């Protein structure tokens, strides 16, 4: 494997606020400072890109001192919150804007796909737009000609190729745009969140195509997305950006977990703040605490051996008398997919009667979760399913690859699911 992209000390400075009025005088000022050999008077160096904090300069480092390398054939997923610098990085890599400092070196053509159907002209026909869009993305005319039928076929717009695209439905536009880009023959592909469009069938087709691009011919893909499941399924490596710097770089699942864990104090301690902004809350009761414990042990843990069961302990404070409560305890992933559901309706079919006061609730989780990171979700409802209290990601925990029994360690590189079914498989020759 060889390095195809090498990024050294890339930083990007952006000007905040209004650009326009006053720029001429500012330019003259700056020029005058330069003539006298002074430093740029408008450049206050050192401010970090954090959109939540109000800085005192008009300039901001959208990216600061970024260094990394990408190997050939790698699919690098770039994730981070809004404003972390993802788009700026993509813009620099695809040469839409120049970095303020630093150098990027690359081998081969870089094609960027930051938007589907860039440069489509509404008055031109589908056919003309395929050629125009292809040329904009850097394809030669002969290349497009060779692939024209495949593109039309992939987009599924054969009937409309001679119709101006302004008569297309938006879905058709997107299909056509993606189809052109999918047949680009660039060594390095920079892709922004363009898959979040089109119908489900087309999305699958698009993700499949992206898979092919990276697996066949060892092409390198840089992929930015907020959709963790597509990052997970597509990428071989991940990069987490935070406030314009690289927070973490490594294998995809670890990166995603780091990103999703974020700065979530509650999920780390299990103590649920009273003033937690709740989406649904009737004021009748609230959860105060979650704790996970190994069976027959006292201390709280957030890491458990593979194939071990554990205890969930909750503390509930009831503020008004409730006659028909249902306690819901769920295990889910960080991005909100709930996998294990458990409620109290089996033991209390008519609901639990709570008087005012604090209660301790305890149960076991016997499901064998596959290695990975999970979180506890909590709910409290009336028997008519009216929500009293609901807490997302109340407490994070991790299932390790190691087990109590050395023979039962998780030995595979990939994790293919969430829950293990331990029943024997019978095989008979027919």
């Amino acid at each position, binding site marked *: 494997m060889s390095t195809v992209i090498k990024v050294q000390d890339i930083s990007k400075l952006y000007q905040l606020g209004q650009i326009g009025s006053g720029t001429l005088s500012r330019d003259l000022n700056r020029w005058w400072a330069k003539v006298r050999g002074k430093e740029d008077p408008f450049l206050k160096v050192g401010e970090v890109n954090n959109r939540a904090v109000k800085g005192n300069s008009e300039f901001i480092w959208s990216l600061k001192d970024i260094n990394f390398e990408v190997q050939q054939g790698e699919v690098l997923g770039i994730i981070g919150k809004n404003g972390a610098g993802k788009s700026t990085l993509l813009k620099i890599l695809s040469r839409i804007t120049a970095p303020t400092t630093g150098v990027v*070196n690359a081998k081969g053509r870089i094609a960027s796909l930051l938007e589907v159907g860039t440069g489509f002209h509404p008055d031109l026909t589908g056919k003309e737009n395929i050629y125009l869009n292809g*040329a904009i993305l850097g394809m030669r005319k002969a290349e497009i000609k060779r692939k024209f039928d495949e593109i039309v076929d992939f987009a599924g717009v054969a009937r409309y190729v001679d119709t101006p695209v302004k008569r297309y439905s938006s879905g058709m536009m997107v299909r056509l745009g993606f189809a052109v880009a999918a047949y680009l023959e660039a060594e390095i592909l920079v892709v922004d969140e363009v898959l979040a469009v089109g119908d489900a069938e087309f999305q699958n087709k698009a993700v499949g195509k992206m898979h092919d691009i990276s697996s066949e011919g060892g092409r390198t893909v840089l992929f930015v997305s907020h959709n963790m499941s597509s990052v997970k399924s597509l990428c071989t490596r991940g990069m987490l950006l935070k406030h314009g710097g690289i927070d973490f770089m490594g294998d995809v699942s670890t990166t995603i977990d780091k990103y999703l864990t974020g700065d979530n104090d509650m999920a780390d301690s299990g103590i649920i703040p009273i003033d937690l902004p709740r989406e649904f809350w009737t004021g009748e009761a609230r959860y105060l605490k979650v704790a996970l414990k190994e069976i027959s042990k006292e201390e709280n843990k957030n890491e458990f051996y593979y194939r071990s069961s554990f205890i969930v302990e909750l503390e509930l404070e009831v503020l008004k008398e409730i006659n028909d409560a249902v306690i819901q305890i769920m295990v889910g992933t960080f991005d909100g997919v709930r996998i294990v559901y458990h409620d109290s309706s089996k033991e209390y079919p008519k609901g639990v009667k709570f008087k005012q006061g604090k209660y301790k609730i305890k149960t076991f989780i016997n499901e064998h979760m596959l290695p990975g990171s999970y979180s506890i979700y909590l709910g409290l409802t009336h028997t008519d399913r009216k929500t009293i209290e609901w807490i997302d990601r109340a407490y994070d925990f991790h299932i390790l690859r190691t087990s109590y029994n050395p023979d039962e360690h998780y030995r595979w590189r990939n994790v293919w699911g969430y829950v293990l079914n331990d029943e024997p498989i019978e095989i008979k020759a027919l």
Partner: protein
Amino acid sequence: MNEQIEKWDLEIKPKSSLFSIDINELIQHRDLIMMFVKRDFSTVYKQTILGPLWFFIQPIFTTVMFTIVFARIANIGTDDIPPLLFYLSGITIWNYFSDCLINTSDTFVKNANIFGKVYFPRLIVPISVVISNLMKFGVQMILFLMAYFYYIIFTKTPVHPNSTLLLLPVLIFIMGVFGLGLGMIVSALTTKYRDLKFLITFGVQLLMYAVPIIYPLSYVSPKKRWIMELNPMTSVIETFKYSFIGKGTFSINALAISFIASIIILLLGTLIFNKVEKRFMDTV
């Protein structure tokens, strides 16, 4: 440790050198240039009834207006050239020039959406604008030639084409270079200072009076002519008229100055364009 001497195909840096234009890259993208030209050309009059006829209608009406207002009412001389030919030749060339300026002045603002999403040499845009305007100029030349041959064949007006017609490629070259140079300057500056766009739209109208279109250069005293000749378009227009019709002022010196001036404009354009190009997207 073996000091690695790695070969990179691409280097992205904060700044590029002042006069460098990556010709290879432009050649690689020649299909795109043609595609843009085709787009500009074929979409202008889509969904119109008269279609490409509009290319002719504008110069015809302007010429008729000029003939009525300037030749008949104001009685401004035309160097003994039939007024229709006189104005039409001036307008044909001037149209090219003003379209180049006006169209390049807002291409970056107009195409900001594309530039924000994909990279190709930004220079392609002014180049394609100049080329499509040259083609439009070619089409309007047909109109001029039709009028021209009408005068030669059907009237007794003295029209003398002469050997300076051979300079026509030079004229077109100057027009192309000058248009591209100005286009680069204008498109680079308008991204940052949008005031320029307003300046240009009416500035072009005013500038027309500083070029011998509605009056012949011979109206200007020889001592002051150099001021007008600083503008390359002046001698292009004069030479054009002289070579087709045989009347008017022709000076090889003035043409040489125009030639040099247009090259200087092109260099200056490259300089400014290179300086701004890489950061277009931050300021548009």
